């Protein structure tokens, strides 16, 4: 086993996803503790553009695993390539993002290799020479510290926004090597019929520094336009608590909480959300929380850094105007 730290990079349209860049930052700290290298492993149908950009974000070495069958993610295709790579040259740690791909792939790889895995990590670090990860447990009513035993590698699946984006250092270069991929189409048992993209006016939750979120207090689907307008003005994303999803006002991928997404943006602005434990589970790790609620006893008002007792329908349009004014003033 080497002391290297691998990051399994996800990318789209020639750009690494934000979570993968965050993982390079996490990997740098781990590699420093062990005097190892940061290795970016980039599977895909075409990888050269994304590979070329990773040195500037902290990778020392890039393995470009290019193959037509890797153009689209499949569990079988990716698991085959990754387990072979991790077996051939086992690093100390392999980091995956807690995305639809990472959550599907990492446990399968861990099982095939028989190595330790921790998912939903909020931190991954070295304590007394041992790799440890922290993760929320029991609806975030507790934080678990998990110790890895010495397997080669150890796999951590890390939540988004846990590590800052590493600054771009254009003069920093990584050594790029192509990783030989042997893959038989018959090894891939599932068939991706299509990936339907959903066009939204606002950015995805996972990438957002600012999330504007609405609950049952939004009263109906049409009122989410108020949140869209504010999110657009702020350059943020729109999320929701569970009732708007259950009522069909917004799609399920808006949901934040125990049965939705876990987010940790710079700012979480909750409108008409009471603050049930299952909702807090998905957002109480946010850096700053603002809540607007007409009920002074709402739990989320108590938790928030700034709580506003008031009617969201009066506040939101004025707030959007005020934000636009600030943004347009030099």
């Amino acid at each position: 086993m080497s002391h290297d730290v691998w990051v399994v990079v996800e990318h789209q349209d020639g750009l690494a996803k934000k979570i993968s860049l965050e993982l390079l930052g996490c990997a740098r700290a781990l590699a420093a503790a062990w005097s190892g290298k940061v290795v970016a492993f980039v599977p895909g149908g075409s990888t050269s553009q994304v590979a070329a950009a990773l040195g500037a974000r902290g990778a020392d070495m890039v393995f470009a695993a290019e193959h037509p069958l890797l153009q689209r993610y499949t569990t079988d295709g990716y698991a085959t390539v990754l387990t072979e790579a991790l077996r051939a040259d086992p690093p100390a740690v392999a980091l995956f993002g807690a995305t639809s791909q990472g959550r599907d792939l990492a446990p399968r790889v861990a099982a095939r290799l028989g190595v330790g895995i921790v998912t939903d990590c909020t931190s991954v670090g070295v304590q007394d020479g041992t790799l440890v990860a922290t993760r929320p447990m029991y609806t975030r009513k507790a934080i678990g510290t998990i110790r890895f035993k010495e397997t080669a590698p150890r796999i951590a699946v890390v939540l988004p926004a846990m590590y800052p984006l590493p600054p771009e250092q254009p003069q920093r270069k990584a050594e790029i090597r192509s990783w030989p991929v042997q893959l038989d189409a018959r090894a891939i048992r599932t068939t991706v019929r299509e990936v339907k993209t959903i066009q939204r006016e606002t950015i995805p939750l996972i990438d957002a520094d600012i999330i504007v979120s609405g609950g049952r207090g939004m009263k109906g689907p049409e009122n989410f336009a108020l949140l869209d307008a504010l999110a657009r003005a702020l350059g943020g994303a729109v999320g929701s608590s569970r009732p708007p999803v259950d009522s069909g006002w917004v799609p399920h991928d808006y949901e934040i909480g125990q049965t939705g997404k876990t987010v940790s943006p710079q700012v979480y602005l909750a409108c008409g959300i009471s603050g049930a434990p299952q909702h807090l589970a998905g957002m109480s790790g946010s850096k700053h929380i603002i809540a607007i609620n007409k009920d002074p006893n709402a739990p989320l008002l108590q938790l928030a850094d700034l709580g506003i007792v008031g009617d969201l329908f009066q506040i939101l349009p004025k707030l959007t105007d005020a934000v636009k004014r600030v943004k347009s003033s030099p």
Partner: protein
Amino acid sequence: MPPPRTGRPPEPWAPQGERVNIIVCVKQVPDTEAPIRIKTDGSGIDETALNLVMNYYDEHATEAGLRLREQFGGSVTLLSVGHERAKEALRTGLAMGADEAILISDSAAEGVDHLGLARVLAEVIRSLPHDVVICGKISTDDNAGIVGPALAEYLNLPQATAIAHLEVDAMGTSAVVHREVEGGVEVLQVPFPAVLTVERSLNEPRYPSLPGIMKAKRKEIKTLNLAAARLTPSTVGAAASRTVLASLSTPPKRKAGRILDGDMDQAVAAIVAFLKDEAKVL
């Protein structure tokens, strides 16, 4: 170390006489509503006074199994690894309409990690006819999401995780599923036998009926130990675990905030000032 696998072609498979053998894996977990008490030594939570329920996603998994049975005929068998008490969660699934339930319970499995848990389930499933294995996408106690894919690996079956839509072909030999991916939906075809893990948007779980509850009470729940599953503590117990819960602690308290109650214009000004000066995002 086993030789590297390059994967293998799908094994030929046909459902036996159009009956589909459905396995649903179920976990008993603390009610997410309830406050928890962390043991003073931080080794875990005190479960004695806790309301334990069937994992929320497993209700959706059970529902998916029951609908498949309604469509194709066959049987739904529930499997759980846990303490004697976990029979209550299995009874919930029986009351919903599952045909049989098996509990694998063994003190030697204490401290098992998720991969070990999947191995236990895989060994038991191997001994049962199985056309499709359904799990929740995560369990709400630790949100790990490891067991489903690991189970698929140990059974050497294809997987589709966190599915939000399921359509099985008329022959019952493959399924088209939808998976929520970032910014879209992936439409995937999966040949059976397969392991599926389900998202909550897949279906609306039925409530157990009163006759269902009465019937479930009388049903025998088969209990197996590790030896019956041809496993030993050295392969799946604490010693074999690759990860260890070192400690459990209460999350750090957020620092107290401000609450403003009054004029709307002041409220708007306060939010803008907060975004600018404290959060520094404006």
